[in-house]
């Protein structure tokens, strides 16, 4: 069974149709990359999958692990194992990063009928995962994303993902604003999490990220539809030829 199956997805944002019948199937353990020009619908897909109310689903269906994802509330989706690494992570003043994550971990555990995590166990977990993405330990006690640099925010997203251990990690332009070292660390963090039962949907403009997170499948998203699907070599092709050649397919 596919982990994520999207069929004929139509999404409106402020009355404009952005996704116009998108189909996408992701098998467990696979890394899919979605590339495409601005305004093609990449971020819309990510937001629609986590249940942002501003994104109105007008048609289509999404199955996650065989369940109707669109019927679930956003927090339920997260608890079932959908994670979105935001393109622009928000700041939450006064709420420490660790406290926030503990609330998330316990909400997810409760959903699965587990007890709250032991405080010491949790502390060890976050420290270990912070090291994995080279997140400064000082940022654990700081308010969520407040005063973080652009790179620190992105790193923090990957850190959250590695603590929450989702079934699918959707990364929305995680590479934007990262220097080459940060890009490598973030990629290492993602690669360390790759496993047979965890999938990733990596949304990016640039082929650069895909040198570090090597995808199994690459899609081109334009004008609200997937216009081409291929292997990792498709990313190279795009890099050298641009998106122009796909315009006709999309029309």
């Amino acid at each position: 069974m596919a982990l994520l199956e999207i069929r004929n997805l139509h999404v409106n944002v402020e009355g404009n149709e952005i996704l116009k019948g998108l189909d996408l199937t992701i098998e467990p353990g696979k890394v899919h990359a979605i590339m495409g020009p601005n305004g093609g619908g990449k971020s819309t897909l990510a937001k629609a999958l986590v249940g942002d109310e501003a994104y109105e689903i007008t048609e289509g269906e999404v199955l996650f692990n065989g369940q109707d994802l669109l019927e679930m509330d956003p927090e339920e989706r997260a608890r079932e194992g959908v994670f979105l690494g935001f393109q622009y992570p928000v700041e939450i003043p006064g709420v420490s990063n660790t406290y926030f994550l503990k609330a998330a971990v316990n909400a997810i555990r409760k959903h699965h009928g587990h007890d709250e995590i032991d405080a010491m166990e949790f502390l060890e977990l976050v420290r270990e995962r912070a090291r994995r993405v080279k997140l400064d330990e000082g940022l654990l006690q700081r308010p969520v994303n407040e005063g973080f640099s652009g790179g620190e925010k992105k790193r923090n997203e990957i850190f959250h993902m590695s603590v929450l251990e989702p079934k699918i990690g959707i990364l929305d332009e995680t590479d934007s604003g990262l220097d080459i070292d940060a890009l490598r660390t973030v990629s290492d963090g993602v690669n360390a999490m790759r496993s047979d039962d965890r999938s990733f949907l990596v949304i990016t403009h640039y082929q650069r990220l895909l040198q570090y997170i090597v995808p199994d499948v690459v899609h081109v998203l334009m004008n609200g539809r997937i216009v081409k699907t291929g292997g990792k070599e498709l990313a190279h092709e795009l890099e050298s030829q641009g998106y122009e050649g796909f315009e006709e397919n999309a029309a």
Partner: protein
Amino acid sequence: MSASTETIERFTNKGYEAGFVTDIEQDTVEPGLNEDVIRFISAKKNEPEWMLEWRLEAYRNWLTMPEPDWQYVHYDPIDFQAISYFSAPKSDADRPESLDDIDPEIKATYDKLGIPLHEQEMLAGVAVDAVFDSVSVATSYKDKLAEQGIIFCSMSEAIQDHPELVKKYLGTVIPRNDNFFAALNSAVFTDGSFVYIPKGVRCPMELSTYFRINAANTGQFERTLIIAEDSSYVSYLEGCTAPMRDENQLHAAVVELVALDNAEIKYSTVQNWYPGNAEGKGGIYNFVTKRGVCEGDNSKISWTQVETGSAITWKYPSVVMRGDNSVGEFYSVAVTRLRQQADTGTKMIHLGKNTRSTIVSKGISAQEGQQVYRGLVRIAPTASNARNYSQCDSMLMGSECGAHTFPYLDVNNTTAQLEHEATTSKIGEDQILYCLSRGIAEEDAVSLIVNGFCKEVFRELPMEFAVEAQKLLEITLEDSVG
């Protein structure tokens, strides 16, 4: 997280939890205000002649004063002749000796509010002087405090038992003609707390009073006076709830604090009077005058307030820093939702040298709530090297609420240093989505975000009070977003 989820679930659809009425025979004076009513109150409380004269003088002042209209709140004119100015439980004559003696119904009222006195005594080590309507019905720990010479009693008792202290300090911080509502209070105040901490004594426990309005149409006019002698310390907690009513109820309290050399007074309030319903009907009119004077050198007065209730709030807890090196602080969280209106803030008056003041104000507006921060920082010519730091943050939930800031600065000494920071933010849909996308439920997300916003104020509250305040905010703001 799960604990707060349970709390929220427990309170879902319950409306205003504290809204119930206890049936006790009241000994109530007919509505209206004149010198006879004041004589009645004074006689009822068996007051000495000087006290009556003091009240009458205040009343005559009040008659000549206009009701203030500069505040940014709107309400129908108050008919002061339609209010009854005295109400006391009948058992007043034979005052209970211990908590076991208090009216079981009164006890049950507190139990419903989740503040059983006996438990508080045992668990929290808090001495409670509970004001039920206008007469204190239970005072605890008095003996233990008395061992150290601390006086903690009702104002009525203080007038009987410690007239010299009352005479010396009453009205010295807030004169009888200070403002319209303070003058009214001075004329008709019924009860309140009196605290005296002798020289060099550190009060061993938090002193606490729970206020309640019970009788319909009975305004509550609390009068509290706290005196901290040289090198003493006291932390005082005030918490309020009121039962649900359709008529507006007037509340005009006066609180005076006096800190002598090296003394420190910490005054914390959680105010949860009935805010009225969604149509703006009912709710308490809360016109309060609170002021402390740092009379002595190196003294400190700190106000911390969490204001979630009342239909209208008009309140500016202030500090006059007369002593050199004295310190004034004001930490405030105010919430307005439904059709609540609050015009609140502080005044920091610097008179002595090297005086320092801090203002941290956090305003949260939801639904159709309107909120004003109004703050005055005055540096007198005598106040060399005075410093002030002000921070006023507003959070808006939804698009029909409002936040307004009116800071006043009056600086008359060039050596002063003042800093003012202000922000207004909207509780972001994106912040909520961020929490949701990590698995955190919406009501938990709101309380997380709001508590984070208020953190700098909450950490000034005594521990148990801080927990209570957080819970109160969660309950108050549930359903305010989305």
